[in-house]
């Protein structure tokens, strides 16, 4: 491993240190090596099978599907729809997420913690459930809003959620949390001395925001917009729930169509996914070029938080505007689902006559798959998040701290799963692991691999952001002082990067708990997840039971989130002394 060759750039060493550095290099090389090997097996190997599948292998070699993927008018239409969706969601995500992030991170906005929690809630809600909720809220004829508008004498269903705009809106209401959290994190890490200097030099608030703060957090904003945009292209749930009824087709829907029938058209699906992968790579290189022009080290090892701006008279009006945005993305869909969960008939108002607990009994006691699903989803999400963040940390570390050739390639590879709808990743995994010597196909392990592979982009980006926060000089100082590699990781990297790593863990854990699109093709009897149970019941039109199960899922996720935050906060206190070795 070449990584091992480059250790301790500050190699001003005595004989003793040199002797121990051999062992230290071995540990480092082995740790990173195992992580990279796991990553290549989980992402690289299935991707190879996807490419082979696109050219018709292993049956026969033929460029037919690949050519068709780029030439058929139906595919072109789907590509245009998908690109418009991505751009729309990216822009809308920034418009919705960044102002709220700035307000909660850097101003004296009231209810900041509430806003922060509600954005988290919006991201927690599985997007297929948000879609169902928005059909109830904004359905053209039966939706609450249109019925209210009609009751005022305006007819013709002015708001139609079954449209391209509806899909963009509902997905943006889910993924704006990504630019929000990344921007929020970056804003909190901004070195206050920079702003203080600007202020002392006489800069006004807006000038400072425009010239100092925004450029400092620009990588987080563009990174967030890009992640939101790419994420939107792969979110099959809303595209299916809201796009398909209106006959609007996106690339994932076309891929799903190619796979759903028999015989499944693996070659067509693989070829279409390669189109998605290409779009992803283009997006990523744009972001890299943009990021390359700036320096992002914003933390110099000091824990000081920047001062909050006083909003003055704008405090409450701004809070109200943000509350509408944030509540529409979280409370509103959640309330609709919870109301349905306690209703005998979800279309009727929640009167005492209509109240019932039987949906929860049906969901948890009568339905074996649902009960098993809760357990499976939990185990899978915890294992996947831990594994993904560990691998992500190794890749980020290699990218930022080593001169290893190919480390950039690892980083590119890690972002690719974002361009793979879960369905396609599942097909890649199926093709890859059906022929694998160890029995993984048809077991719970293939789900774990799918979850880890799917979450690599977020895990690697998150770990990357975390490692970037740590100035390399701190680690070099520790090494000069004789600390081993593991000690340096534990005492320097971990304390500074921990909150970002915890965030990355959560950002993997939460979607994994509700993952549907890959699971649906990979699960088998005994390995059902909560999302499978929800999907199957939803297919059967049992919306009240679906809502009950969704409520349980959301409550569980909320508890897990609070627990993690509590742990993170507790850890912060006990190890804060350790940051100064």
């Amino acid at each position: 491993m070449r990584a091992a060759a480059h250790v301790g750039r500050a190699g001003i060493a005595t004989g003793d240190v040199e002797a121990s550095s051999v062992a230290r290099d071995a540990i480092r090389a082995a740790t990173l090596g195992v992580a990279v090997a796991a990553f290549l097996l989980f992402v690289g190997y299935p991707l190879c099978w996807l490419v082979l599948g696109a050219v018709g292998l292993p049956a026969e070699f033929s460029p037919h599907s690949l050519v068709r993927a780029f030439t058929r008018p139906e595919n072109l239409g789907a590509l245009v729809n998908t690109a418009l969706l991505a751009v729309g969601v990216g822009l809308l995500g920034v418009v919705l997420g960044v102002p709220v992030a700035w307000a909660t991170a850097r101003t004296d906005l009231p209810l900041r913690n509430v806003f922060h929690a509600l954005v988290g809630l919006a991201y927690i809600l599985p997007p297929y459930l948000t879609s169902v909720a928005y059909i109830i809220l904004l359905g053209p004829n039966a939706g609450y809003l249109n019925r209210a508008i009609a009751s005022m004498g305006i007819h013709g269903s002015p708001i139609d959620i079954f449209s391209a705009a509806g899909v963009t809106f509902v997905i943006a209401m889910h993924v704006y949390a990504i630019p929000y959290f990344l921007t929020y994190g970056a804003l909190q890490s901004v070195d206050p001395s920079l702003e203080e200097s600007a202020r002392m030099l006489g800069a006004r608030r807006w000038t400072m925001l425009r010239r100092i703060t925004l450029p400092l957090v620009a990588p987080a904003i563009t990174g967030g917009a890009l992640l939101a945009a790419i994420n939107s292209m792969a979110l099959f749930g809303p595209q299916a729930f809201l796009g398909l009824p209106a006959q609007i087709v996106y690339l994932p829907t076309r891929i799903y169509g190619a796979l759903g029938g028999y015989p499944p058209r693996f070659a067509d699906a693989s070829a279409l996914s390669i189109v998605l992968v290409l779009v992803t790579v283009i997006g990523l290189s744009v972001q890299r070029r943009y990021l390359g022009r700036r320096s992002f080290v914003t933390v110099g090892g000091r824990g000081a938080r920047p001062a909050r701006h006083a909003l003055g008279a704008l405090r409450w009006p701004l809070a109200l505007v943000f509350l509408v945005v944030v509540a529409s993305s979280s409370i509103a869909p959640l309330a609709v689902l919870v109301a349905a969960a306690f209703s005998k008939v979800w279309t009727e108002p929640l009167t005492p006559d209509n109240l019932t607990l039987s949906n929860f009994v049906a969901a948890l006691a009568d339905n074996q798959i649902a009960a098993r699903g809760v357990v499976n989803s939990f185990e899978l999400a915890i294992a996947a998040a831990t594994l993904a963040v560990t691998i992500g940390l190794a890749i980020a570390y290699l990218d930022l701290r080593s001169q290893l050739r190919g480390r950039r390639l690892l980083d590119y590879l890690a972002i690719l799963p974002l361009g793979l709808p879960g369905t396609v990743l599942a097909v890649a995994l199926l093709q890859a692991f059906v022929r694998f010597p160890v029995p993984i196909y048809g077991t719970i392990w293939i789900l774990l691999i799918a979850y880890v592979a799917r979450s690599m982009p977020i895990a690697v980006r998150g770990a990357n952001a975390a490692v970037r926060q740590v100035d390399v000089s701190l680690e070099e100082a520790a090494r000069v002082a004789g600390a081993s590699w593991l000690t340096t990781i534990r005492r320097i990297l971990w304390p500074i990067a921990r909150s970002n790593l915890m965030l990355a863990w959560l950002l993997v854990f939460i979607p994994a708990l509700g993952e549907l699109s890959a699971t649906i093709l990979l699960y088998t009897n005994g390995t059902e997840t909560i999302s499978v149970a929800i999907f199957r019941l939803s297919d059967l039109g049992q919306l009240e039971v679906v809502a009950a199960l969704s409520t349980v899922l959301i409550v569980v996720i909320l508890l897990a989130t609070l627990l993690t935050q509590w742990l993170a906060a507790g850890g912060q206190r006990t190890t804060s002394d350790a940051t100064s070795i």
Partner: protein
Amino acid sequence: MKRTMRSHSYRRRTFLGRIGAAMGATSGLARKLAPMYALAAGATTSARAAAATTGADVTKAKSEGNVMLYTSLDTKIVDAIIKPFQEQYGIKVQYYRGGSADVSSKVLAEAAARRIQADIVDASDVGAFLAMKRLGILKPYDSPAAKDVAADLRDPDNMWVADRLTQAVMQWNTKLVGSAPPQHWKDLSDPRFAGKLAFFSSTNGDGGPRLYTLALAFGWELLESYAANKPLRVATPQLVSQLLESGERAAAFCTNDNIAWRSKKLGKPTDYGFPSEGVPTELGAVGLLKDAQHPNAAMLFYDWWMGETGQKLLVDGGKYSSRSDLAPPSGNPPLKNLKLLVLDYAKYQAQRPQLLERLTRIFGGEWGA
């Protein structure tokens, strides 16, 4: 469709005959075997009548302890059928439930990987059973419990037997259509249903066969007039019911009779009708897997599924049984009173890509073409 039906109807006069003709046309071999099959069936009739209600070795089945069912039937019906079976034999029935296309593609994927996990498969998709038979993954079984299924509703080689028939009906919200509910397919072409129609098909075009049947019988213009009303399209008939119950849409074409039946039975504000000019019909079928891990338990359960108890529970759930000795679901007309439009599956399979492309042109959206 009229022309197609006429060309077949000279052979058999009943509606079942037409289905059988469509089946038979799927392979020249089947047609050649048909007379032989008829002879064999005649010879074994008395023996079958005398046999027990199962052809399985019950002791062996019990020692296997488990059976794995893949089904596209509504879970409420599946649960109802399984419960007394488990109580009687102490054999645990595990099941995977998905849409017809999900069930079929899962079995075919497992077969391709040579890791069959299903013991017994049930799906409302005869095309898939023809494919499974062609691949040689089914096990022939001449079940004594299936003797009340007309010979026309089974595979001549006993690889599968029909267990249920699903009719494509019109369904509507009683509050929204008021005193003039639609009676004929063409009624839904009326501009008063603009923005108020619904239908279903998943992205792999599983709604295609019935729409094709309708188009052959009454012309493609009918579908084009539906498309002009901008119908909302969802993935399953259950979701169509949901749209109608909530008042999101006023009426639906080609939804499943049993789902419409249940919605009405549960007291939802919906009703449904079988247009007198003819309703498309789809067969569900059941078969055993050759590489089943619990072969005896699978046979025993197959006999239970097709037996009187199992099929009666199916009817109680709103399905028409394939057994000629069972009554229709409560409140529904007997099949002989309906004009059933039967699809020539072989013809459909052969033209499937072009037909799905035609549906894409008419309705837009994704049809798996």
